[in-house]
């Protein structure tokens, strides 16, 4: 597999504080990668950079072999391939259908094709028929599943998940785990932060571990900077 992401000498500062410092990291395309580490270790910061939402303070990020230019025009095209699902996802005001339609509409999808994609993604997360529901009236677990459906509808090449199982009920967790496990077969690379040992990816050794903003050298595959 070719690398989908390569980071070289990447740092991210918040004011004076160093939040992330990665001399080198290569992430291959395909499969599920877990990003682990204690709170404040830089996991969300790294996901923000990989999602092309916040630029590193210094260093270079390569996506699909090409150096990322942090200019709005090129970033929009990249963001349409890489989608980030936040830990506390924000659902827009309006219906579940309208939420999922947002990204599809931006991509020019209309009519039956769009409607079909929305229904299909809702079915995938076990919320078929939820399209007409008010997004803000959903439970925590339903919110997380709708946000996942909203991301899945876009068929991203890379899906970044920030603690997707935090604050969800048991039933939702079962569904989300199953959906995530099936994503590589659909051609989506998954990179996720989680503390849940039952999530696929946590058990097969493909773990990027961060501590205080730096790659941990506790595992062989990370010590080489390659996962």
């Amino acid at each position, binding site marked *: 597999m070719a690398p989908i992401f390569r980071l070289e000498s990447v740092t991210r500062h918040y004011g004076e504080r160093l939040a992330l410092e990665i001399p080198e990291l290569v992430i291959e395309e395909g499969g599920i990668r877990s990003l682990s580490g204690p709170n404040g270790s830089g996991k969300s910061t790294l996901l923000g950079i990989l999602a092309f*939402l916040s630029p590193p303070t210094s260093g270079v990020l390569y996506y699909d072999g090409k150096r990322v230019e942090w200019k709005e025009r090129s970033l929009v095209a990249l963001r349409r391939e890489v989608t980030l699902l*936040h830990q506390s996802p*924000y659902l827009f005001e309006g219906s579940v259908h309208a939420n999922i339609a947002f990204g599809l509409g931006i991509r020019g999808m209309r009519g039956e094709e769009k409607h079909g994609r929305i229904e299909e993604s809702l079915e995938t997360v076990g919320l078929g028929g939820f399209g007409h529901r008010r997004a803000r009236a959903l439970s925590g677990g339903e919110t997380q599943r709708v946000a996942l459906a909203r991301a899945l509808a876009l068929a991203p090449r890379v899906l970044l998940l920030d603690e997707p199982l935090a604050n969800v009920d048991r039933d939702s967790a079962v569904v989300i785990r199953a959906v995530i496990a099936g994503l590589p077969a659909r051609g989506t690379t998954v990179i996720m932060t989680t503390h849940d040992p039952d999530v696929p990816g946590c058990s097969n050794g493909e773990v990027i571990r961060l501590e205080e903003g730096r790659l941990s050298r506790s595992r062989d595959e990370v010590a080489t900077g390659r996962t």
Partner: protein
Amino acid sequence: MDYLVESLKVSLSLILALDPELCQAVRTSLYVSAWSVVLASLMGIPIGLAVGLTEFPFKRSVITLLNSMMAVPTVLIGLLVYGFVSRQGPFGGLGLLFTPAAIIIGDALLATPIVANLALSSVRGANTAILPTAMTLGGTRFQSVLRLLSEIRFGIMAAVISGFGRVVSEVGVAMMLGGNILGSTRTMTTVIALETSKGEFALGIALGLILMAVALAVNIVFQILQRR
């Protein structure tokens, strides 16, 4: 007391009879207020968004300035615009002084800081995840800001309504730049001021009632939209 009660009775009869002078003042007031709040929104909302969504040097000073501008007296704005549109002023040749257009300009300047400040408050109070969410779903910066605007639309509407409330009830700008000309620039507030100075309360009270009704109607419409 009888005098006030009698004035109230006459004022109600003026309203029911759709007195031409009263109707003209109401029309002029609503016309200049609507246009000035449109202009104030076109300036104030982008200012509020720009200040709220970007980081730049002296941002705090700009916010303090915007806050201070909310308290600028209407007569000062009237004086400033008068200086520009009077015959000796740089825009004197346009013949704007003592026209509804002059009032619209002054009122727009009056309402802009209010709309900008309240729009800024809405932006700062908005969920910080809105923009990143819209962007990670593939939105351009512009599309994402439009999404943000949609999410905070009630705050923006409140800003516009506050701006409208400010201009429809002000008298300084309308008097100085409009000149209170019957049939042209006479607004509800300038009629109230004029009639009161003449000791004629009836028309003033009638217009005061209509002013209150306008404020109430605008707020009712806002509440209905909010519920939807």
